[in-house]
């Protein structure tokens, strides 16, 4: 997707540039006054080239991924370098001169920062700081060691006469070369190690080292370079001292690369907390895309640059010597440092780790850019150095990159294991941290845990307060975070598996307090919590206040959402800011219709439920009216029974939950056929009669018309007998009115809808608590009222419902109802996946608040 978008982006640019390129030949002599075609290449050159590079890079990546076999064996970086070589060869053959070099300026200013920022941002910070000691040691000491030993050894090699005398370089030149060739390159390391999947500690050490040692390398390079430019004869002893001072100062003030890394590392927490979920995804993918593009372009340019033979001069002794020395000293350095580090480390690095670390020391574009930057007049051996660097980079990236995967496999390096976080782990990990911090206090040793504890407290007290939104700060707790991610995951797996998961993960806890709405509470909590995350706009969640009110609100919305979802389609504005939501809605609708179809097939007997839900989405069909009629008939049946109005709440809930369940496993194409008609066939006479009535908006027909015969559902499903038909009653009211309203532009008249809806209701025998219902119809459209009237309107679920029922029902029905209640509750929450429900709700909230 991203690639496609990129290439799309590139196309207009390319088009703009290409158009003029074709034209200039055709007009022989352009009319003097009006110049139709102009050669505008210079105006578009830069963006055109950039776009072209990105386009080629994207294409290359796509092509590489066409063949899984190749990419699984060969790292992408190798392929890109090879591609660059080929492209460079073509350019060289066509233009007779090498073009498009990897310019150091471009590299350091444009290509490197995205990669470094990306890696800093996605760096597992805990792991990074846990291993900070080792990383810093390898980065600073290791790099210095590599630079000096390699430089000195090469100089020794030259003294021994193994390097051709035409390489004019002194000790300082070699030290300079050693400093630039010594740095392990983050881009190369990342590109290779991301595909290798070694264990986290190993990865973070190698990668962290490669990120941090750039700072050391660049500084060292600058120092050496200034020495070289002064000329070795002019360097006094005091200058070395100055150099050391400069080195220290530069390291203290840190390099830009390090700064960007730290920026990414530091800002992640606060950035993520402050922006919405959607923006978080955007940030994530933008960064990844930029980094990926930059990386691709770097490797390709590396390949292309290597073709330019005018820039480099070959000396076998130097090249071979360098290769051997960097490998050897890297390994030696790693072994020595690890030995020292292992004296202090809790978990020592074993031999295999050391092998991988030594072997993973890939050199890359940083070294190349630095060597290109050398001044030829000051460093006469520059061409040789360039050639050597290219060979070293190619060797490490291609040979080592190719072989490291088999090596890791062969050595049986501990791979990284991915296990899903569990709440227990998260909680206990925190406990352990606290315990360790406390024990360090007791022992009186202010170690790592002590300082981390300190930092966390500081962060909590000041930084987070300062940098995070209030609400985000509240939500931002790690345990909480895991909890909520778990919920999302459950929801997803619930949806995937067709809704049989949640019941097994046991939302019904024996340990849960026996409130009168145990199950319902847990469901709504789940809904609410996962809602807070899956919601597109966090602000929306903030409008929902805490406690039971919120639950009630959610429950209420749940009910209403089931009833009015499809209608919202008409309200959706065409603003381009809401695109995704519209799509979501359409999806909802499709799913919904499928569900209805399915439901009809499987629950043919439970007509009334289907009827009410089915009839909503398609207001213009005639079949709908018939259905209404049936629904109405059933409704009047219900009235005959004289059940409390509020029972419906619970029933509607179950209906909704069934939908949810079916939504989960429905994935076929939409088929909006008249299931309603099929279903209606069983009660034709009533339908015909009622159809007219409902069509004329006489919403509530008199009970006389319909013979109060129980439906199949009532016979077969005991729990439907008392409540199902009532559900129909309510729903039939709404369905009947909605379509008519819609046709007349119902948008403005929710209140008129109420007025239409209520009269028939009032005629019903027992309607003690009418207000909740009309409110219910109103809520989804006006969710902003939500906080204002929390309890009074939505408090009807089971607890109240039970009360109403017991009031109205005969005593004989009572035990049955009480039996049903747990069943209903259980059903509710087993069926209601937080995720599915959430998606609806978010949309509703947003829509409401924007309207």
């Amino acid at each position, binding site marked *: 997707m991203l690639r496609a978008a990129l290439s799309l982006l590139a196309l207009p640019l390319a088009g703009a540039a290409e158009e003029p390129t074709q034209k200039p030949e055709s007009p022989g002599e352009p009319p003097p006054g009006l110049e139709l075609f102009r050669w505008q290449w210079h105006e578009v050159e830069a963006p055109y080239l950039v776009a072209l590079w990105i386009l080629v890079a994207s294409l290359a990546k796509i092509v590489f991924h066409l063949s899984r076999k190749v990419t699984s064996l060969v790292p992408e970086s190798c392929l890109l370098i090879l591609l660059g070589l080929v492209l460079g060869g073509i350019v060289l053959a066509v233009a007779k001169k090498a073009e498009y070099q990897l310019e150091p300026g471009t590299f350091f200013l444009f290509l490197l920062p995205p990669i470094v920022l990306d890696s800093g941002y996605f760096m597992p910070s805990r792991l990074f700081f846990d291993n900070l000691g080792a990383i810093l040691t390898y980065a600073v000491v290791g790099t210095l060691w590599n630079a000096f030993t390699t430089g000195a050894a090469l100089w020794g090699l030259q003294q021994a006469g193994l390097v051709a005398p035409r390489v004019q370089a002194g000790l300082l030149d070699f030290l300079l070369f050693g400093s630039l060739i010594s740095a392990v390159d983050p881009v190369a390391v990342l590109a290779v190690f991301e595909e290798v999947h070694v264990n986290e500690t190993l990865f973070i050490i190698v990668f962290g080292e490669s990120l941090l040692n750039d700072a050391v390398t660049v500084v060292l390079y600058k120092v050496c370079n200034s020495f070289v430019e002064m000329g070795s004869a002019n360097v006094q002893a005091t200058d070395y001292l100055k150099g050391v001072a400069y080195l220290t100062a530069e390291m203290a003030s840190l390099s830009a690369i390090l700064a960007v890394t730290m920026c990414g590392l530091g800002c992640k927490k606060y950035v993520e907390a402050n922006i919405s979920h959607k923006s978080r995804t955007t940030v994530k993918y933008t960064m990844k895309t930029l980094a990926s593009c930059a990386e691709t372009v770097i490797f390709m340019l590396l390949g292309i640059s290597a073709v330019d033979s005018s820039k480099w001069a070959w000396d076998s002794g130097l090249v071979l010597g360098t290769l051997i020395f960097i490998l050897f000293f890297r390994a030696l350095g790693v072994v020595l440092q690890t030995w020292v580090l292992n004296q202090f480390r809790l978990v020592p690095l074993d031999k295999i780790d050391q092998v991988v670390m030594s072997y993973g020391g890939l050199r890359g574009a940083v070294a190349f850019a630095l060597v290109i930057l050398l001044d030829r007049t000051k460093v006469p051996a520059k061409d040789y150095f360039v050639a050597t660097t290219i060979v070293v980079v190619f060797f490490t990236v291609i040979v080592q990159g190719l072989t490291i995967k088999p090596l890791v496999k062969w050595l049986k390096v501990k791979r990284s294991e991915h296990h899903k976080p569990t709440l227990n782990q998260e909680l206990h990990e925190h406990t352990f941290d606290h315990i360790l911090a406390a024990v360090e206090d007791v022992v009186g040793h202010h170690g790592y845990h002590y300082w981390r504890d300190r930092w966390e407290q500081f962060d909590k007290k000041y930084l987070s307060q300062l940098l995070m939104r209030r609400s985000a700060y*509240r939500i931002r707790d790690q345990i909480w975070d895991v909890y909520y991610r778990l919920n999302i995951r459950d929801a997803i797996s619930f949806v995937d598996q067709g809704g049989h998961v949640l019941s097994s993960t046991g939302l019904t806890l024996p340990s849960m307090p026996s409130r009168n709405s145990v199950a319902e509470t847990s469901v709504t909590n789940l809904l609410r919590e996962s809602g807070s995350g899956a919601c597109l706009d966090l602000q929306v969640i903030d409008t929902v206040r805490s406690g039971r009110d919120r639950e009630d609100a959610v429950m209420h919305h749940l009910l209403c959402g089931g009833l009015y979802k499809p209608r919202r389609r008409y309200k959706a504005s065409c603003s381009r800011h809401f695109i995704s939501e519209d799509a979501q809605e359409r999806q909802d609708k499709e799913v919904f219709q499928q569900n209805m179809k399915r439901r009809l097939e499987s629950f043919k007997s439970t007509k009334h439920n289907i009827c009410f839900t089915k009839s909503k989405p398609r207001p213009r069909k005639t079949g709908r009216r018939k259905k209404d009629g049936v629904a109405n008939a059933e409704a009047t049946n219900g009235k005959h029974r004289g059940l409390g109005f509020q029972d419906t709440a619970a029933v509607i809930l179950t209906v909704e939950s069934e939908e949810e369940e079916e939504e989960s496993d429905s994935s076929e194409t939409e088929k909006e056929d008249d299931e309603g008609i099929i279903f209606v066939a069983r009660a034709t006479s009533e339908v015909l009669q009622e159809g007219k009535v409902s069509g004329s908006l006489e919403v509530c027909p008199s009970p006389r018309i319909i013979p109060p015969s129980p439906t199949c559902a009532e016979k077969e499903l005991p729990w439907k007998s008392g409540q199902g038909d009532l559900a129909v009653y309510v729903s039939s009211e709404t369905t009947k009115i909605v379509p008519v309203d819609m046709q007349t532009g119902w948008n403005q008249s929710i209140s008129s809808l109420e007025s239409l809806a209520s009269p028939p209701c009032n005629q019903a025998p027992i309607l003690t608590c009418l207000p909740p219902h009309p409110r219910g119809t109103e809520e989804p459209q006006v969710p902003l009222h939500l906080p204002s009237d929390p309890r009074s309107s939505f408090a009807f679920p089971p607890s109240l419902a039970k009360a109403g029922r017991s009031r109205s029902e005969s005593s004989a029905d009572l035990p049955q109802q009480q039996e049903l209640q747990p069943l209903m509750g259980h059903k509710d929450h087993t069926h209601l996946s937080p995720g599915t429900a959430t998606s609806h709700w978010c949309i509703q909230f947003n829509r409401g608040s924007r309207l």
Partner: protein
Amino acid sequence: MGSRSSHAAVIPDGDSIRRETGFSQASLLRLHHRFRALDRNKKGYLSRMDLQQIGALAVNPLGDRIIESFFPDGQRVDFPGFVRVLAHFRPVEDEDTETQDPKKPEPLNSRRNKLHYAFQLYDLDRDGKISRHEMLQVLRLMVGVQVTEEQLENIADRTVQEADEDGDGAVSFVEFTKSLEKMDVEQKMSIRILK
């Protein structure tokens, strides 16, 4: 200070403590030094007050419980008891696992004992189970005020239910161990200086 530590070389029962806890002589000396520093009135034992004096412990959410864990019985803890608790956090070394003598009791710093130490911080009533209520209490300590009580209850429910295998609504030690079986407890419950 230097004279003090040389003086402290005579730790009562030093050898037996070392055998039991596995601490090196140096660590034991260091701990003894610390012990006496904490013991303000030179009474030869520590009381809860002594530990509560440690400033940073006061802000530790689990501070009270950890202090409590030093006093399994009674109001005072002597040096061997003090060291015994701390021995849980000695890093696991190779020789510990190699010289595992079936007759000898498990070393205090074994994975099991480390976990058990954490477990008993949760299990306030010492019935061998972390009930939902106990879990909730810990959560309340750890999560802080930003999360509402209701949400905490949900998390507690979820946590218990996640680990609870036999369905008794509480987390037994076995279940506790199992829920952490993927975690590197030996590493996470060790302090490097306590060798």
